[in-house]
């Protein structure tokens, strides 16, 4: 087959190929962590071939090899995802294809096409990550894309990169008002496009409503934010911040689940005694669950959520998008005594309780007079015996509770909570497991606390007569000297939670922390103002304008109006400036503006020489710079042979040209 014949002017230059390749690499980078390794390896291979091909053009694969590579790329995606549709498979295929196109950059048309396709790649990223940093990064990539297109279209001739960038900035600035109008007013889909059924099958990271060994450990090493909290007044001590999530009643020997009973309890749960409530606002990342996390104990639920008898705040709809809610909680409280049915539920034991567990509890029961003393005995056991807190616990077999208590004695919150709750039940004290988060990191910059997935925690509540359900945290009972900090810093890095105090005397660590907090603040602001902006906000805006009756039609009409107005303003501004100005015109216009600010505006009918003469007559002190500028400007503008260096010289002269204000004493004296 004959090779494509390309006219000389349309042939791609190596520098253009290089820039296009770099652009594609830059656009691919943020999506790569979300793709399978084999796809990433393929992308890296093609990038390498392309870059090497710039150095040694003969090394570029020919047509046949390219076809082969294309099949290989598709097969690679199929192998990784078993489908080419859906978010992951589609993104992988798209990235593979655009990368393969890099091997075929022969004409400028190829370059333009590839550059435009990068725009799609940029949109694809937002299926994976909407954070501010990604948006900012992709904004820069988009500017690069526009600049490359400006260069490729050749309107600027052989001009360098700076004029192209200037055009790019101007284009971007002109597009900005329209973007804002569209952002605020464009009628929105109720759900993001990527929630329309082809999302990933893997669950979101976050709290699950069951607990078994290893369930939380996946969370604990996850530095992602779970939610942000802003307190009305001074926040309570971090050690007291138990963010209450699902409550688990049922243990099947290995796994804790919610069970079924208390949900149906018709009795409203009320606290019999409570301290002054504190109020705070939570911004919860989407969890696809219905839990709304609130401090122990919540007393008022936000609208479209309710408080269950087990004092969990539950939303009526799953949290699929960022959710903002206000809750009030009391820090000290006493709950009502539950019904007998609930007591029995909280005493139910799995059938794999071993004799040595019973023996252990029997010892404590003999020593303790009251239930509370027994609870304290249990906590003392964890403290006294050689229990270790580690994020890297040994694997547990068929009877995890027994093995943990008597053999491995190393684990983290879920091991402790599970074992402790079981022991209490053996002792006849009703108990239940509460999942949630503990603590939270202060963000002084943003003025809020951030609670991360790594703050996930599990604790126990025991039923004590007269006091109701009392929170007991067996993990906290572990002797601090037996906390395995190495595992924490190895797994968590800078994201270590409250339970591992990372040394902050180190200056770099402090700097890294404040940078991290700053980034989080930016993310929060981004969430608040951009990602959070929803149909409700739009309708509220319409309501303010008295157009709520028209709903989407009002929005659309308003949008058209705003777009027309924006365009009209831009056109007006453009027509007033008398564009298209070339660089020389622009320089002269700046020169005139500077003189106008000094009280010597150019008359519209004045030619440059006459203007210069008038200026010089009125302000002899300006004769030098004005004369020099015009002596260079006039021939550049009007003669047949103007050299391009003149432009640079004029620019330099203009930079230093700063005529004094007319109010300066010098000119006042003269006018008298």
């Amino acid at each position, binding site marked *: 087959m004959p090779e494509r014949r390309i006219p000389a002017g349309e042939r791609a230059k190596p520098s253009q190929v290089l820039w296009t390749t770099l652009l594609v690499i830059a656009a691919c980078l943020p999506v790569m962590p979300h793709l399978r390794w084999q796809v990433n390896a393929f992308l890296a291979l093609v990038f390498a071939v392309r870059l090497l091909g710039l150095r040694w053009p003969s090394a570029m694969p020919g047509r046949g090899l390219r076809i082969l590579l294309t099949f290989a790329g598709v097969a690679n995606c199929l192998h990784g995802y078993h489908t080419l549709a859906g978010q992951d498979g589609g993104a992988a295929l798209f990235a593979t294809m655009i990368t393969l196109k890099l091997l075929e950059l022969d004409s400028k048309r190829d370059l333009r096409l590839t550059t435009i396709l990068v725009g799609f790649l940029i949109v694809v990223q937002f299926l994976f990550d909407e954070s501010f940093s990604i948006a900012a990064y992709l904004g820069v990539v988009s500017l690069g894309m526009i600049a490359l297109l400006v260069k490729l279209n050749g309107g600027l001739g052989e001009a360098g990169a700076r004029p192209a960038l200037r055009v790019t900035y101007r284009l971007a600035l002109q597009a900005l008002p329209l973007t804002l109008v569209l952002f605020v007013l464009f009628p929105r889909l109720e759900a993001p496009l990527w929630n329309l059924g082809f999302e990933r099958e893997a669950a979101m990271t976050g709290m699950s409503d069951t607990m078994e060994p290893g369930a939380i450990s996946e969370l604990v090493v996850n530095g992602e934010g779970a939610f942000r909290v802003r307190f009305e007044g001074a926040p309570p001590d971090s050690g007291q911040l138990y963010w209450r999530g699902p409550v688990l009643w049922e243990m099947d020997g290995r796994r804790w689940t919610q069970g079924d009973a208390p949900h149906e309890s018709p009795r409203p749960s009320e606290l019999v005694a409570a301290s002054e409530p504190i109020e705070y606002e939570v911004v919860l990342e989407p969890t696809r669950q219905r839990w709304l996390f609130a401090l122990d104990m919540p007393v008022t639920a936000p609208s479209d959520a309710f408080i269950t008898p087990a004092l969990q705040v539950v939303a009526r709809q799953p949290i699929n998008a960022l959710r903002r809610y206000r809750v009030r909680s009391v820090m000290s409280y006493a709950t009502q005594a539950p019904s007998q049915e609930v007591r029995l539920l909280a005493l139910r034991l799995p059938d794999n309780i071993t004799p040595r567990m019973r023996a252990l509890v029997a010892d404590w029961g003999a020593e303790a007079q009251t239930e509370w003393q027994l609870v304290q005995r249990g906590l003392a056991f964890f403290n006294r015996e050689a229990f270790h807190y580690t994020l890297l616990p040994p694997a547990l077999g068929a009877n995890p509770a027994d093995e943990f208590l008597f053999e491995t004695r190393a684990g983290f919150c879920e091991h402790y909570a599970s074992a402790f709750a079981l022991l209490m039940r053996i002792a006849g004290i009703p108990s239940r497991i509460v999942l949630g988060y503990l603590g939270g990191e202060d963000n002084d910059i943003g003025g809020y606390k951030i609670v991360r997935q790594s703050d996930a925690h599990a604790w126990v509540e025991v039923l004590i007569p007269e006091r109701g359900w009392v929170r007991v945290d067996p993990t906290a009972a572990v002797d601090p000297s037996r906390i395995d900090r190495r595992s924490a810093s190895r797994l968590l890095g800078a994201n270590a939670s409250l339970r591992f105090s990372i040394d902050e005397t180190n200056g770099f660590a402090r700097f890294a922390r404040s940078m991290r907090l700053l980034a989080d603040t930016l993310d929060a602001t981004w969430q608040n103002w951009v990602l959070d902006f929803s149909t409700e906000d739009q309708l509220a805006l319409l309501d303010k304008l008295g157009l709520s009756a028209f709903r989407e039609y009002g929005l659309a009409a308003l949008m058209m109006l705003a777009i027309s107005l924006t365009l009209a303003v831009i056109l007006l501004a453009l027509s007033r400036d008398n564009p298209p100005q070339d660089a020389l015109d622009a320089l002269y216009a700046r020169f005139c503006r500077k003189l106008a600010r000094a009280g010597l505006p150019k008359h519209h009918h004045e*030619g440059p020489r006459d203007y210069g003469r008038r200026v010089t007559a009125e302000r002899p002190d300006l004769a030098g710079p004005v004369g020099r500028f015009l002596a260079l400007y*006039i*021939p550049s503008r*009007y003669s047949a042979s103007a050299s391009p260096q003149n432009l640079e010289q004029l620019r330099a002269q203009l930079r230093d040209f700063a005529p004094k204000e007319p109010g300066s004493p010098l000119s006042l004296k003269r006018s008298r």
Partner: protein
Amino acid sequence: MSLARRRPQNEPRPRAALADSILDSARAVILGKDRELRLALACLLARGHLLIEDLPGVGKTTLAHLLARLLGLDYSRIQFTSDLLPADVIGVSVYDRAAEGFRFHPGPVFSQLVLADEINRATPKAQSALLEAMEERQVTVEGETRPLPEPFFVIATQNPLHQVGTFPLPESQLDRFLMRIQLGYPDAEQEKQLLGGEDRRDMVARQAPALTNAELIELQRSVTQIHAAPPVIDYVHAVLQFTRGSERFAYGLSPRAGLGMLHAAKAWALLASRDYVIPEDVQAVLPACVAHRLASGEIGQREGAEDAARFILDSVPV
């Protein structure tokens, strides 16, 4: 002038120096009229015809005569009167017995520089005989076309209209003059100098030509090579458009007026020793180039003509 003589013949003198030497000589004779002299010279370098309009006795004829001398042109003068006939201008065929045929006796128009004195005293018929020659640069007599000499200039003078016994030139004919200038009375200082000095007629007669014909033609050619950048063209066009759209004028400027103005501006730039036109060149020649084309109803009313030009200059942005 003497400087020019010392140079070898084949080496062309700098154009600016040439023009300057002409202007210097002219200034010595016609006092205090630097701008008008410059305009007149520019008009001739742009191969345009010149109309000098003013009261009798302010030096119109002297100026024409002087230019003819300085430019080294052969010169004839036609005094226009109300009984002047076309044949008096272009010549007549007379039967020659010896040759047994008609022989053409060329009229005064067959000169390189024709001074048409008091052109508006003649009847339109006689006027148009001259004006046709001006435009065509050739004369057709009895079916035979005879070219006029090269270079060919007409300098016409006219009296203000309100004087008795004048026939106004129609617009179409005024359009053939590239420029109309007015001399006006001299300043007090220069008038005293004039009164005390020697006779101007003698001074003119003493002037030696500053140019050869070839040099003049070369100068004229170099005017056409002056560069007019797009912004200047835009400006000239804006002036034309403005006069066509403005309610102040009954009709706008013709394309010929625009061409003439640009050409005159080029000549003006040459006189300033520049090889490109700047907007100020256009502005300098604009009043002389457009006033007679726009304000023909107001001939002789200095203020009217100057106002019209000023109005255009002030209204059209550069």
